């Protein structure tokens, strides 16, 4: 199987003792939106810089669409659009001038360059600024412009390193919407971030990195399942009578019940099938159920548990 992005035992050492990456192996399938999560200094940007040919690994290999980035950077980078950290722009140029240059670098024809400049600037809502000097742009506009640059040549893979860093809420929402759009278009997106909310909203797989090593990797569904706490919160139309509480306790899959006025927390084994069975029993027993929610922890809790497991292991 050819992966969109694959790394084999990537190691990046600075000096003799410090390893920014210590044997990172990744497999990212085409069309996935993958969150690359970890604390500051975990090695996220180092991985991305290797994938985009900015730095060379001390050992190991990085492949994009099966092409070795170190051995054949020119070919590999043709299929990548990248936004790394907070890049600078040429203040004295206009978006049109800058993007025209990059269009030529990607061997696009003049007509195609003009067409794509208009298309990508429209996508990032900068059409009115095509011929204005970039020195006058706000941080959010510059970030959107650099995303436009990353998309100019219609790449198969988009690599985004902390794309919402330093943006205001509106800017964050814009970038999030763009990523959702790329996801629906089937583009592979590799998103490095330490903002878990952003990752939870747009990604379908998450890779956790710490101290240069991958410590966990799972789909959002898998993470969601493991985050279910084995508790359902049920809200009833009326306060429960003593008899009704006893009926709840009698449901065979329910281990214990905490009741507070019109709400009840039912403890069970955490399996989705069991949750369905409990709901069926409630309905068949004529309980007037207003809402039924499986309680789960957030990605933050998962992150904390993964990181604390790592600390414990060390």
């Amino acid at each position: 199987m050819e992966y969109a992005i694959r790394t084999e035992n990537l190691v990046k050492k600075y000096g003799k003792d410090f390893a920014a990456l210590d044997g990172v192996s990744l497999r990212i399938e085409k069309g996935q939106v993958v969150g690359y999560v970890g604390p500051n200094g975990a090695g996220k940007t180092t991985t991305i810089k290797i994938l985009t040919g900015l730095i060379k690994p001390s050992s190991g290999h990085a492949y994009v669409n099966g092409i070795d980035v170190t051995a054949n950077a020119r070919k590999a980078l043709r299929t990548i659009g990248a936004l790394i950290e907070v890049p600078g722009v040429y203040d004295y140029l206009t978006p049109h001038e800058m993007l025209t240059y990059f269009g030529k670098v990607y061997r696009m024809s003049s007509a195609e360059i003009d067409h794509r400049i208009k298309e990508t600037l429209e996508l990032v809502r900068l059409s009115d600024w095509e011929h204005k000097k970039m020195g006058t742009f706000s941080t959010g506009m510059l970030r959107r412009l650099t995303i436009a640059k990353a998309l100019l040549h219609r790449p198969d893979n988009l690599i985004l390193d902390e794309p919402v860093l330093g943006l205001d809420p509106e800017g964050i929402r814009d970038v999030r919407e763009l990523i959702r759009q790329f996801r629906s278009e089937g583009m592979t997106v590799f998103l490095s971030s330490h903002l878990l909310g952003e990752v939870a909203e747009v990604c379908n797989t998450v890779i956790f990195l710490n101290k240069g090593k991958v410590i966990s990797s799972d789909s959002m569904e898998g993470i969601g399942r493991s985050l279910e706490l084995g508790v359902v919160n049920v809200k009833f139309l009326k306060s429960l009578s003593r008899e009704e509480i006893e009926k709840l306790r009698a449901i065979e899959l329910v281990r214990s019940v905490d009741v507070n006025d019109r709400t009840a927390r039912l403890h069970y084994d955490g399996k989705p099938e069991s949750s369905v069975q409990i709901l069926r029993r409630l309905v068949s027993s004529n309980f007037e159920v207003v809402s039924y929610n499986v309680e789960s922890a957030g990605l933050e809790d998962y992150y904390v548990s993964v990181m604390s497991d790592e600390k414990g292991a060390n």
Partner: protein
Amino acid sequence: MEIRRESIWNDVFETYLSVNFELVKHLKRRRLPIVAALAVIVPLIFYVKVPDTADVFAATVLSFVNILIVVSAAMFAGDAVCGEFEKKTSLLLFPTPQRRSTIFAGKYIAALLATFLVVLLYYLTMTLQTAQLYGWGEIPAELGKSFLTALIYSAAAVSVVYFFSALLKRSITSTIVGFLFLMMILQVVAMVLMLVHQEPWFIVTYSANLITDVLGVLSSLPFGPGEEEHAWVLMFSPDFGVGIAVMVAYAIVGFVTGMAMGIRRED
């Protein structure tokens, strides 16, 4: 063989793109128009006192071309390498399908072309002035040789500043260090060597005296009151062959080491 040919073609095309982009940047930052304007305005100052012969006029005007070359080199090559890293535009420029060597070669060539253009404008203005003051027939026969020497010195000066641009982190530092290195440090070293009766043949700024020396008028003019006390300055005059070789050596070494450092740089 086919793959190799394609690779060479790619390198040439990418270098061409980089040269174009750099020249556009020099224009947009108004560096090229400003230095080009200096190249036209400075020779006009010499109308203040017009010498008797065309040779002396040409030599006097050309004695300032060295300064203009150094200013040009500092302006166009000062941020060639470190500028991309300092302003983080490297994060836009490098993750693209072009080799760093072609990007940096393009930057060097663009700085060189811009400096050549400035030198050309200076010589053109001076030639027109000479023709206007003394007639076309009086234009020094060795002017072409002087022009070519100035171009070779331009390459050396651009390479020196380019080297500092790859060595240092900040554009302003590399621009100033490059400028001072050529305008002061090498000049002082040359003078000290001459004081102890050693010819500073390996100092590129000393070789640059050839630009006016080829006209038959010595440019190593003493400064300060009274020429007699400073006669030691006139003791040496660069040999043409050695001087050209030194300039070419500076040009090659500065460019190659600057390129190598730029390609390896990781920040």
